[in-house]
């Protein structure tokens, strides 16, 4: 209860803080990269992009192109995808009242993985079909898990749903592995996709943006409802909140967010479960705070992870999914330890 009274007052402060962190991460992401361009030149070039201003950054056209066509959209895509994954995770956790729920537990990732593999195997020529397939697969995976969970557990219990998600994930992953055996030469592409990539340029950004906007608006509007839901379905109903409808809406919105993120960037684990946790630790458990902060914090985290991925062994690159796990896990443990100490 205290967690709900406090944050509503501190909410603007937290959001301002988070936006500040996101801005710092994005600027850092723009300043550094595998190409050897001085940060000062990047700043000059950024000023040059502003309307009505002309500054000579001294960069060759190819370098200007790589900044504008590669680095800038890459930072933006990382911010959007990270935000979507973290926000979806928070949404799932609210729906299932289970802090371990995340986009990957509920069949979304496995569905997307299977659909992508099938697309790569059946339509090797058309790279454009992959995002569509991933999207359909993610939605299908969650739908399957949701339906199974609902029919198995009559009351729609959250544990049943999560277990159904685990079962669906295992099953879909098995089919995916089976399909892969028919096209062994495509394994490399499937693995590249599984490890995630946010370097697809502006196309990738424009592709994800509308879905990001819709799902973010839907989820953010339901923060208060999720808070009410957290006291229990019956109490919520008695308070006039249509529990089943809220649950379904949030579930759909979170799945849409996951599907959009997975469709453009592949599988990037860890963000959806860790960021909401960190947010809860720092700013309390109200979903009116957790959802927006997860959106912003997830974005900042993935921008940072991508910056590490593309600079730490530059000019070679690490897959971003590896970085989110590798950097995220110790960071997560650190936050847990820190907040536990202050809480007690």
């Amino acid at each position, binding site marked *: 209860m205290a967690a709900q009274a406090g944050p509503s007052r501190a909410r603007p402060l937290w959001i301002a803080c988070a936006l500040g962190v996101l801005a710092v991460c994005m600027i850092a992401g723009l300043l550094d990269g595998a190409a050897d361009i001085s940060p000062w030149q990047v700043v000059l070039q950024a000023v040059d992009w502003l309307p009505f201003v002309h500054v000579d950054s001294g960069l060759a056209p190819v*370098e200007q*192109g*790589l900044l504008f066509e590669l680095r800038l959209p890459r930072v933006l895509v990382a911010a959007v995808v990270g935000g979507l994954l973290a926000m979806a995770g928070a949404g799932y956790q609210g729906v299932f009242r289970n802090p371990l729920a995340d986009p990957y537990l509920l069949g979304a990732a496995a569905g997307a993985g299977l659909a992508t593999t099938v697309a790569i195997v059946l339509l090797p020529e058309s790279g454009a079909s992959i995002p569509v397939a991933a999207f359909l697969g993610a939605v299908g995976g969650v739908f399957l898990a949701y339906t199974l969970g609902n029919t198995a557990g009559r009351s729609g219990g959250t544990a049943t749903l999560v277990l159904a998600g685990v079962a669906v994930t295992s099953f879909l992953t098995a089919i995916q592995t089976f399909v892969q055996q028919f096209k*062994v030469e495509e394994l*490399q*592409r499937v693995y590249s996709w599984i490890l995630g990539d946010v370097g697809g340029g502006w196309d990738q950004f424009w592709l994800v943006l509308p879905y990001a906007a819709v799902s973010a608006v839907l989820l953010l509007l339901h923060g208060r409802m999720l808070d009410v839901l957290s006291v229990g379905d019956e109490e919520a109903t008695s308070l006039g909140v249509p529990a089943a409808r809220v649950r379904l809406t949030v579930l759909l919105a979170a799945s849409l967010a996951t599907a959009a993120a997975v469709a453009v960037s592949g599988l990037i684990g860890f963000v959806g479960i860790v960021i909401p946790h960190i947010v809860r630790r720092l700013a309390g458990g109200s979903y009116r705070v957790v959802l927006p902060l997860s959106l912003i914090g997830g974005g900042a985290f993935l921008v940072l992870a991508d910056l590490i991925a593309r600079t730490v*062994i530059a000019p*070679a*690159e690490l897959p971003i999914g590896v970085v989110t796990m590798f950097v995220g896990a110790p960071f997560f443990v650190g936050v847990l330890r820190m907040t536990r100490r202050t809480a007690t």
Partner: protein
Amino acid sequence: MRPRRTALAGALLGTLILAGCGQTGTTATPSAAPTASSAPASAAGFPVTVEAGNGKVTLAKKPERIVSLSATHTETLFAIGAGSQVVAVDDQSNYPPEAPKTDLSGFKPNVEAIVAQKPDLVIVSNDIDQIVAELGKVNVPVLLEPAATKLDEAYEEIAEIGAATGNQAKADEVVSGMKTAMDKLAAEAPKDKKLTYYHELDQTPYAATSQTFIGQVYGLFGLTNIADKAPDQAGGYPKLSAEFVAQADPDMIFLGDVKCCGQSKDTLAKRPGWKGLSAIKNDQVIQLDDDLASRWGPRVVQLAESIGAAVAKAGAKS
């Protein structure tokens, strides 16, 4: 790691083929050690012992039922005249066309399916799933000839396969022919221009450094590999940062992902930030044959020829 020089017992003995075929090689010419009894011409010196990647492999008699689980070694077997001894090759072996292609997998070898072919020699390039030990349990001799990292290793492997299959003389002939052709190409290459290049393995984009086999082939032509800036821990096949490639702006781009992934000058130009690259503007994007660019068998000469032709053209232009 690499198999040592072939140690073979009297494979050359009694053969009428000119020993001079191997004269260009200094290290690669097999040192023939005569056996106690000189073998008749046809059965050419079996038993024979070959020092392969899996240690010493001894074959009591000339293998007549060879199974190849490596596309490279399939090409070698047919090039050195062992084709008639080959009964089955894996699903990736698409050259030469007459190779008895089966659904055997070299990526996920199935011991029972291999044994069902009743092989008296299995050739692999990778000991996946302990395939060498598994086949050893059922007494099938296995020759492990791993991916070559240098041209000399590729030559050695061809000679070793020649020795193991009783085709030593033809194998030496193939090797010396390759060496002559490669030397000639290298000699013709324009060395005055310091051209840079990027060799792409797949569009994510993975490249190959000069430490790799393919990098060594490019090395013959005096080209500078932009991927060499990648740190060692990235391996010989680093996943490069797209912005690094854009900034490095290589003079030539060689695509090894044409057949698999449909890459071309046009698809490169559509990648974010790449359309201004000089290689694209100057029409220096060279589409290689994926298979040639990933195998270290006799057809590496054809790969070198296509690289050489492209370099000559680029040199003439700039």
